[in-house]
């Protein structure tokens, strides 16, 4: 055994068939798994000219060799597809238990092609796979879908990864939800599922997942467990969840507020992780094999749900001018139930709020209107009234009304919860992200705000290009391995390389691991160039380049793209347009 389940399932929804094949050794060697598998298979199979919501798009679910091996925080799977929101090849990552269960069911990856005439779900069951009728599930929320499948299978051990009504309605930022609240959140992966009439992927099984060298893996496991436990960062994550970031980002004056009009929210404490711990938090919750447990189970009034995490708290809170944590949590629960990305949905509402306040759109919503915000979330999910227009995302919406500059997005995907004007390297990371506005393809907040692995001055541009490249490549490799990105606060490239070597039996060095990450990054980039992306797209909204911050330490700052972009391209071995040179492609085996 080598950490892999050994098989991949190819579901042709047009033909209604599923074929099972061995996981190719070359794919393991060059791309490891997870995001690597997804991007390689996707870019091999999909003509760059296709429409993302057409029949010819492909969805790849893939776990990594470290998923489900009992390694702390080894729980992740990736969903890769051509995003209907951005038009780019992308992947969305999710935790929970599903990734482990997919491998216990016998599969490293599943490749979904075509379009079913009627709603179906894909059942993975102890080495077998088949398509089943899902007509009775269509229209159900993610929670109802999960309940119904558990009931019809008479088995609560199954794990369900599904879409809600938003995916069925082709909301461009619909997500996929597993175990009722864990999301492959970004880019509209749920809309692609909906376009194929695929309601869910269900995994059941108890097949073994064994490492190549169990004794060596036990030693490395112990080492990484100790590092994670000794790293003080993870204690704060356990106690306060990811929402512990609210205050530190706000105190640095880089918490985007009211659609990035300012970067400091006076009421941040009201929606902080500290306040959540004292009020609505019932208990922490972890994914498979997690020793951190950053997940939140929250209960209040008649409401019960998981989350909210930091990003939705920011987006439904400060970005919409709202200081009521319960309303934020309610909105987050609606997103989970309907299957909406809880970053893009609220950020699109924040865009509407600014446009309505400025009179560009006739609508009663204003910043701070929490009840109005909740109504809009449902309208988006159901594509009702103005929700139908907002379901296209903030860029298309703002453009329709003549003000694209008010969409706080990059490559048409809404930006996350940090103001790049006061965090220069993060700005470069999100502007060059191959999946559009993003924070988890290279988390520069870690060195620039949190001080890990070392403190970098967030206002300085010098040297940031190299950091961004390294973080982006390492993250791609971590996403391929199946590990949670939060391990990177405590672990280095050599730790992942040692875990992979012991698990797979392939001798992988830290340098080779980074090369795998670089290969994935360049492959994704090359494909996106074929879909029309270029230097012009590696940027951020004009507001962030021209309107100075006006409060706190970053007063006077704007995001300084031109001081970093050429250096970044040069370090990557790309030309001035951001295209990987032939030499770089050859070096990575992509030519």
């Amino acid at each position, binding site marked *: 055994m080598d950490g892999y389940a050994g098989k991949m399932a190819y579901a042709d929804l047009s033909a209604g068939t599923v074929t099972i094949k061995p996981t190719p050794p070359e794919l393991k060697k060059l791309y490891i798994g997870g995001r690597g598998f997804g991007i390689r298979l996707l870019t091999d199979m999909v003509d760059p000219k296709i429409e993302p919501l057409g029949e010819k798009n492909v969805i790849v679910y893939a776990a990594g060799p470290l998923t489900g091996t009992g390694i702390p925080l080894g729980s992740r799977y990736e969903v890769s597809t051509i995003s209907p929101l951005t038009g780019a090849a992308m992947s969305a990552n999710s935790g929970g238990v599903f990734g482990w269960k997919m491998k216990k069911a016998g599969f490293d990856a599943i490749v979904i092609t075509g379009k079913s005439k009627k709603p179906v779900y894909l059942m993975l069951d102890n080495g077998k796979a088949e398509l089943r009728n899902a007509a009775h599930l269509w229209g159900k929320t993610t929670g109802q879908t999960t309940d119904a499948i558990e009931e019809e299978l008479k088995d609560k051990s199954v794990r369900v990864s599904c879409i809600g009504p938003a995916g069925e309605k082709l909301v461009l930022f619909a997500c996929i939800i597993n175990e009722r609240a864990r999301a492959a959140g970004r880019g509209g992966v749920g809309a692609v599922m909906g376009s194929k009439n695929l309601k869910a992927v269900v995994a059941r099984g108890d097949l073994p997942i064994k490492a190549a060298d169990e004794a060596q893996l036990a030693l490395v496991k112990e080492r990484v467990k100790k590092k994670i436990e000794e*790293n003080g960062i993870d*204690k*704060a*994550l356990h106690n306060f969840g990811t929402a512990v*970031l609210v205050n*530190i980002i706000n105190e640095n004056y880089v918490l985007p507020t009211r659609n990035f009009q300012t970067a400091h929210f006076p009421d941040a404490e009201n929606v902080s992780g500290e306040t959540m711990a004292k009020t609505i938090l019932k208990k922490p919750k972890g994914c498979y094999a997690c020793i951190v447990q950053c997940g939140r189970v929250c209960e209040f009034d008649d409401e019960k749900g998981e989350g909210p995490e930091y990003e939705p708290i920011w987006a439904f809170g400060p970005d919409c001018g709202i200081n009521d944590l319960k309303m934020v949590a309610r909105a987050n629960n609606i997103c989970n139930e309907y299957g909406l990305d809880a970053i893009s949905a609220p950020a699109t509402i924040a865009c509407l709020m600014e446009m309505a306040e400025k009179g560009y759109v006739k609508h009663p919503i204003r910043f701070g209107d929490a009840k109005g915000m909740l109504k809009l979330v449902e309208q988006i999910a159901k594509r009702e009234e103005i929700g139908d227009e907002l379901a296209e995302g903030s860029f298309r919406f703002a453009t329709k009304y003549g003000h694209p500059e008010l969409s706080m997005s990059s490559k048409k995907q809404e930006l996350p919860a940090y103001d790049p004007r006061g965090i220069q390297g993060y700005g470069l990371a999100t502007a060059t992200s191959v999946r559009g506005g993003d924070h988890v393809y290279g988390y520069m907040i870690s060195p620039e705000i949190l001080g890990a692995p070392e403190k970098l001055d967030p206002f300085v541009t010098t040297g940031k290009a190299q950091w961004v490249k390294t973080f982006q490549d390492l993250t791609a490799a971590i996403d391929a391995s199946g590990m949670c*990105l939060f391990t990177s606060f405590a672990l280095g490239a050599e730790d992942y390389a040692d875990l992979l070597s012991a698990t797979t039996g392939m001798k992988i060095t830290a340098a080779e691991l980074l090369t795998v990450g670089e290969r994935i990054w360049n492959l994704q980039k090359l494909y996106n160039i074929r879909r029309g992306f270029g230097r012009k797209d590696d940027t951020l909204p004009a507001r962030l380049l021209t309107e100075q911050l006006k409060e706190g330490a970053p007063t006077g700052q704007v995001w300084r793209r031109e001081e970093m972009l050429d250096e970044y391209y040069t370090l990557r071995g790309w030309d001035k347009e951001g295209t990987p040179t032939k030499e770089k492609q050859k070096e990575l085996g992509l030519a």
Partner: protein
Amino acid sequence: MTVTQNRITVTVKSFATLREVMDARVQVDLPSGATIRSLLAELTGRYQGLGELLFAAPDTHRDFVNILKNGRNVEFLGRLDTPLEEGDLIALFPPLAGG
């Protein structure tokens, strides 16, 4: 705030696990010319357990502890020697992460 007899008053806010050992917000009276170092000496004397959370060794705060003066990390000012002035707002963070 008024400056009296060459003394200054600064406001300190603490976050996350630091609140287990100290007030979330406190005003501290210090001699004029005080620095982050003297402020922390005052606070660690006042709050039992705080020193252990902030310092790995004398004069060396723990990895990933962040101290902001008016929103700017003191790492990029004068570190522990960063001078304090009347009315400064100091934010203390233990190691933390998210995303």
